[in-house]
């Protein structure tokens, strides 16, 4: 059934549905996230979490200065994050601007990395300030170039001015465009939505309109994937699952730089939605610097001491 039978595509039905959502108490949500941050993950649990986190990384480069060479180098790293240790899993995906998609796809396939998907940021990323025609063309370009994951941004201006149906319609259109060819991740840019109530509302709009994943941030706005924001989104995903029996993924992107940060995110997942979500198909971490810290922690677990950063490749 379209939109899970919860809304019918009209503004009135969307507003009605959103009214049923309970609010989020800021202090309570932050306290819960802070409590879960005290979990102490050691030894075997830590080793397991490091490998899982590596497999969830959407290895990202989103710079004006990106070149084919830089993207190819990143692809090599994505397939074999540690060239000295073949037991290290490949990352979850490569995430690039749409003009780099074809280069990334071709290179990945040529180095035995056909299992690594290419994600393209889309819909006038990062601001989302463009006409719908441009956003559709942007997405179509990425799909044509071989992207199997589309990371679109929502129109925060529309959201903040209360035009929830505009936000919904954009997502629904991009969903239709992606069809079965690509997974759709919807970026809420929580740093611009500011309140947890907004994060919860936007999460539901995205899920209802057909998102496969809801994603915190573009990485261009701070704060980004703070633990309480991710907590609130995971709770939304859990509630949506209870409502529809449909599992939506979550991608935490921006500001997650250390193994400790990443493990905190995995604890949030584990204790909010449960272990079913502890898989790259339902949880991703958008990052670039994080991967090297995970690799160094992995070497430390294997060798008993921290390697010099020179032993980890910079791309």
């Amino acid at each position, binding site marked *: 059934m379209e939109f899970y039978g919860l809304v019918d595509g009209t503004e009135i039905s969307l507003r009605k549905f959103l009214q049923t959502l309970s609010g989020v*108490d800021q202090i*309570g949500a932050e*306290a819960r996230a802070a409590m879960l941050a*005290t979990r*102490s993950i050691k030894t075997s649990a830590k080793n397991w979490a490091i490998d899982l986190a590596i497999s969830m990384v959407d290895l990202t480069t989103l710079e004006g200065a990106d070149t084919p060479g830089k993207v190819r180098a990143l692809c090599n790293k994505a397939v074999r994050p540690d060239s000295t240790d073949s037991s290290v899993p490949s990352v979850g995906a490569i995430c690039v601007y749409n003009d780099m998609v074809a280069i990334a796809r071709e290179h990945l396939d040529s180095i035995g990395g056909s299992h690594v998907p290419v994600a393209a940021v889309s819909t006038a990323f990062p601001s989302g300030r463009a006409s719908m025609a441009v956003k559709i063309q942007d997405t179509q370009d990425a799909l044509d170039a071989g992207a199997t994951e589309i990371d679109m941004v929502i129109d925060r201006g529309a959201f903040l001015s209360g035009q929830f149906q505009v936000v919904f319609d954009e997502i629904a259109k991009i969903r239709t465009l992606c069809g079965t060819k690509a997974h759709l991740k919807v970026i809420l840019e929580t740093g611009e939505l500011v309140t947890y109530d907004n994060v919860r509302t936007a999460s539901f709009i995205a899920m209802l309109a057909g998102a496969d994943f809801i994603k915190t941030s573009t990485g261009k706005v701070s704060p980004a994937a703070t633990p309480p924001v991710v907590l609130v989104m995971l709770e939304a995903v859990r509630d949506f699952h209870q409502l529809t029996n449909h599992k939506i993924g979550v991608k935490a992107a921006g500001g997650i730089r250390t193994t400790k940060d990443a493990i905190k995110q995995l*604890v949030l997942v584990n204790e909010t939605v449960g272990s079913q979500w502890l898989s790259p198909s339902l949880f991703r971490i958008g990052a670039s610097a994080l991967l090297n810290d995970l690799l160094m922690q992995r070497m430390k677990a294997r060798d008993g001491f921290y390697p010099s950063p020179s032993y980890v490749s910079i791309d």
Partner: protein
Amino acid sequence: MTDFDYAPALESRSIVTIESEYGHFINGEFVKGANHFPTINPSNEEVLSQISLGGAQDIDRAVASARVAFESTWSKMPGKERGKYLYRIARIMQERSREFAVLESLDNGKPIRESRDIDIPLACAHFFYHAGWADKLEFAGVGSSPRPLGVAGQIIPWNFPLLMLAWKIAPALAAGNTVVLKPAETTSLTALLFAQVCQQAELPAGVVNIVTGDGRTGSALVDHPGIDKIAFTGSTQVGKAIARAIAPTKKKATLELGGKAANIVFDDAPVDECVEGIVNGIFFNQGHVCCAGSRLIVQESIAEEIVSQLKVRMSKIRVGDPLDKNTDLGAINSAEQLSKITALTKSGEDEGAMRWSPECALPKKGFWFAPTVFTGVTQAHRIAQEEIFGPVLSVLTFRTPQEAIEKANNTPYGLSAGVWSEKGSRIHWASQQLKAGVIWANTFNKFDPTSPFGGYKESGWGREGGSHGLTAYLKSAEEGGNNE
């Protein structure tokens, strides 16, 4: 591994030294007791040490030493100087906080996360806060030259051993009183470590005296003619006995007794944070909390949703070794308390309420009780009336705000209550109607030394904390008395 199994993350117990035997702390020194009884680790029944059983003679010596210290030094000392000692004690406690946390978890059974993050920091905060009061007593609200009462006899419970010690000793000392404190029978160790801190801070001898023992020791303290004030935290039953015992005397008293707090959830509550607050309200410290939110009174229209989310959340509660940093629910403090909880929960089942606990493997040795919720509870059930003092929640429902308040107040207790709603006016209205000393809005079980704590009705007399608590250790110049 498909599940995220947290490997054991044990806090090291090697940081703390436990003697094989302890005496009393009287007049600045440890003195050997005549008889001893064991104190055990409730999580595995290991004997930790032998504690002295204080008798009338020990109390007598302790009161005498407190009297001398009161008259010769402590009450004469300028407030600023007393404040320095309190600051020093607070700092040493902070420096030794890991020792205190580990010892508290060993002796009491509470999770290290709570002793480390709540009990010990709050205990330190009470000393810091009251240190600041010591030279400002004329602003406490009892006239321009307030005076201390004299020697305070203080009896504390086993649920927050060091924190309750701080609640008692810090205001007493700031106001210029000296004290004889009796820790609970099952949890004396952190009080004895505190005695070492007093020595380390070079607190004048006799200002703090600690006599360990059981109920008989406590009653010797209450009956001692040299005591000017009794401060007691514990059961309503013992509180009443104390009130009777001191009625014919001039002794003053503050009593912090039982509770059966209502946690009221309106239909516009923020669901996830509310569920979290319910969990903190009843499962914090194994429910061994006098102000625990043991009665969930939830609006019928959202009762199903709240209870179902609560069950999901309860299945994430980690029960186990108190020294594991990831433990949420530790051991029940004693076999006696466990049998009391077991008996009351059985009565809940017998009276027809629906019992539910998540699947959780409890350790074989030691005293354990799974987090439990009863639904379909009515006011007539024992589990809605009696204080269980364990991890057991009773869920009742209401239809109108008025009915919620009536049910909440329908108890002989009145220590605390919680209100959950996104509507500010409703929170204010409800908190004016509720007969409880502390009311939390959209949170539960939050404590601060500046905030007075205490109960209505059978939950006690007087307040502890804030200027209210301080005045319970002061009298105005006009009141006079035997210490002029």
